[in-house]
C-alpha cells in the first residue's frame, strides 16, 4: 500500500510526538513500576519498567507512614484543607467577579487594576510578613493560615469567571430587574446558575494547586499529626532515613492519584481555562 506523498510529513509529525511523549511519560511510569518492585531491586536494572514480580505490599507498608501516624491521617488532613479552601476560593471569587463585571460603581477601575497587580505578585514575596502576622494571631500549627486567605478571592479565578459573565447577555439582568429582582437576587438566581462551568474550572484548579501546595504547610504545620500529603511525603522520603525504597515510590505515586483522576475527568475544563485566561498551570 503506497502512502500518498502528502501523508509523509503528517506521519513524521506523529512519530516525533510519540517519541516525545514516551520520553516525557517515562519518569511517571518509572515511578509506578518502582513502587511495585522489591525494595532491594529498585536500583538494580533501575531503568527497567517491568518489575520482576509485583510487590503490592509496598503500598501496605508505606501506608503505615512514620512516627505511628498513618497516611490515612495525612490524606484526611489534605482533603480537609483542599476542600474547605476550594469552596472558600470559588465562592468568594464568584462574588467578586460579579461585582467587577456587572456593577458600575465609583472606583471600580482602580480596584480592578489593584487586583490585576496582586495577580502578578507572587506569594513568596509576602510570605515572611504573613507568617509574622499569623504568628501574632497564634495561628501557627493550625490550618487557618492555609484556609483563611482563600476566602478573600483568588485573582486568577475572579478574572476567569469575569470573562464568563461578560458572555452572558445584559438583557437577562434587565429582564430580571423589571421582574423585581435586585442585584443580589439577580446574582443568585440568574448569574450563578449560568456560570457553573467557570466555577467548576476554578474549583479544579484550586483543587490541584492546593493539593500540590508545599510552601504553606512547610511554613505553618509543625506537628506531624497535622501534616498534609506533600509535607508528609517530604518527611517520609527523607534521603537519610529511607530504607524501603519501594514504599517511598508507592506513597509518592499514590499521592498523585487524586490529581490525575481529577485531571482526566475534567481535562476539558482545564484546557479551556488555560486557553481563555492564560491561567498558570
Amino acid at each position: 500500500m503506497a502512502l500518498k506523498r502528502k501523508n509523509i510529513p503528517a506521519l513524521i509529525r506523529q512519530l516525533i510526538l510519540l517519541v516525545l511523549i514516551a520520553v516525557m511519560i517515562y519518569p511517571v511510569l518509572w515511578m509506578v513500576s518502582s513502587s511495585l518492585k522489591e525494595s532491594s531491586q529498585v536500583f538494580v536494572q533501575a531503568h527497567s519498567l517491568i518489575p520482576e514480580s509485583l510487590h503490592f505490599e509496598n503500598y501496605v507498608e508505606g501506608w503505615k507512614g512514620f512516627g505511628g501516624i498513618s497516611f490515612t491521617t495525612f490524606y484526611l488532613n489534605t482533603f480537609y484543607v483542599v476542600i474547605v479552601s476550594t469552596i472558600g476560593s470559588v465562592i468568594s471569587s464568584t462574588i467578586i467577579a460579579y461585582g467587577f463585571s456587572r456593577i458600575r460603581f465609583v472606583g471600580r477601575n482602580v480596584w480592578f487594576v489593584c487586583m490585576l497587580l496582586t495577580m502578578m505578585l507572587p506569594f513568596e514575596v509576602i510570605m515572611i510578613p504573613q507568617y509574622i502576622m499569623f504568628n501574632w494571631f497564634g495561628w501557627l500549627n493550625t490550618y487557618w493560615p492555609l484556609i483563611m486567605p482563600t476566602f478573600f478571592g483568588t485573582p486568577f479565578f475572579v478574572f476567569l469567571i469575569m470573562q464568563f459573565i461578560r458572555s452572558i447577555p445584559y438583557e437577562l439582568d434587565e429582564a430580571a430587574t423589571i421582574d423585581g429582582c435586585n442585584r443580589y437576587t439577580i446574582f443568585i438566581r440568574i448569574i450563578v446558575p449560568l456560570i457553573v462551568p467557570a466555577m467548576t474550572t476554578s474549583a479544579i484548579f484550586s483543587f490541584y494547586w492546593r493539593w500540590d501546595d508545599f510552601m504553606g504547610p512547610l511554613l505553618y504545620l509543625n506537628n506531624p499529626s497535622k501534616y498534609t500529603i506533600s509535607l508528609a511525603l517530604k518527611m517520609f522520603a527523607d534521603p537519610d532515613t529511607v530504607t524501603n525504597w519501594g514504599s517511598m515510590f508507592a506513597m509518592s505515586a499514590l499521592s498523585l492519584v487524586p490529581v490525575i483522576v481529577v485531571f482526566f475527568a475534567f481535562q476539558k475544563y482545564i484546557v479551556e481555562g488555560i486557553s481563555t485566561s492564560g491561567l498558570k498551570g
Partner: protein
Amino acid sequence: MVTMDNNLNKLPVQTKQVKRKRKRRDYENVTGYVFIMPFLIGFFALTIFPMLMSLYLSFTKYDLLGTPQWVGLGNFKRMFFEDETYWQAMKVTVFYVLTAVPFRLAFALFVALLLANVIRFSGLYRTLMYLPSIIGGSVAVAVMWRQLFGNDGAINAILEALNLPTTSWLGNPNTAIWTLILLYGWQFGSAMLIFLAGLKNIPVSYYEAASVDGANAWQRFIKITIPLLTPIILFNVVMQMINGFMTFTSSFIITEGGPLNSTLLYILYMYRRGFVFFDMGYASAMAWVLLLIIAVLTALIFKSSKHWVHYESGGDR
C-alpha cells in the same frame, strides 16, 4: 470616575429622572462595594499591610522573639557587599531563569506547532503532554526526580545500557542545576496550551495566500506564525519569568541547594534566612529586592515589546 448607567427607565419628567438616576447610582455604588468587599479586605489585610510591614522590617533586625531593631540600610549593605552566599544565590537564580524559561518556552512552542497541525489523536497527545504540568510541582515528583538522577537511578542505568559515561548528576556542582532546569522544562504544558490557543487564532487564509505567493514552510513560520504569535510570546515570557524566579520545591527537595550551593535558588536562600536562621529583617529585605528586580524586568520586557510585538491593526477584537 462615575460612568453613566445604562439607559434604563427613560422617564419623561426631567427631575424625576434625575432623582431616580441618582438613587440608582447610589444603589450601584453600595452593591458594587458589597460584592467586591472580600477582595478589598484581603487586599488590605493580606497584601498591602504585609507588604508595608515587610518594607519596615527590611530596615530592621528581627528574630521573631524580641522587638525589631532599626538598622537602617544595614541589611542591604550586608546583602550587596558582605554576603557572598547572597551573590551565589543571585548568580544561580539568574542562570536558572535565563536557561530554564527559554527552554520551557521553546519546547512549548515546538510541541504546540506539532500539535496544531496533527489532526488524528491530537486531543490525546495534548492531554499526555499536559500531564507533567499537573503533577510536576508536587513533592512526589521532586522525590521521584531525585531518585531518577541519583547515582543508581534510571538515567545512569540507561546511559550504562547504552555504553555512555555515567556521572553523579546531583553530586556534581556543574550538572546538579541542569536536573532542576530539566524538571522545569518538563512542565511546559500550560505555556503550550496558551501557544496552541494563539495558533488557532491565526487565519488559515494568511498561509494560503503565502503559499500561493511561493513561500515555503520556513518562510511561512518566520513571516506569519512568529509575528502573529508575539503578543502570546510576550505574555508567556512575563508569566514564566516570574514563575521561574519563584522556583522553590525542586531545589529544596532534590538538591537541598547543594552541592556547594550550586543550586541555591533565591527563594530557597530567602527561606533559609527567614525560617532556619530567623533572620526576618534580612529575609524581608531579600523579598523586596526580588520584587524590585521582577518589577524592573517586567517593565523592561513590556517597554521592549514595542519593537518586537506585532499587534494586528483593527483585528478581530
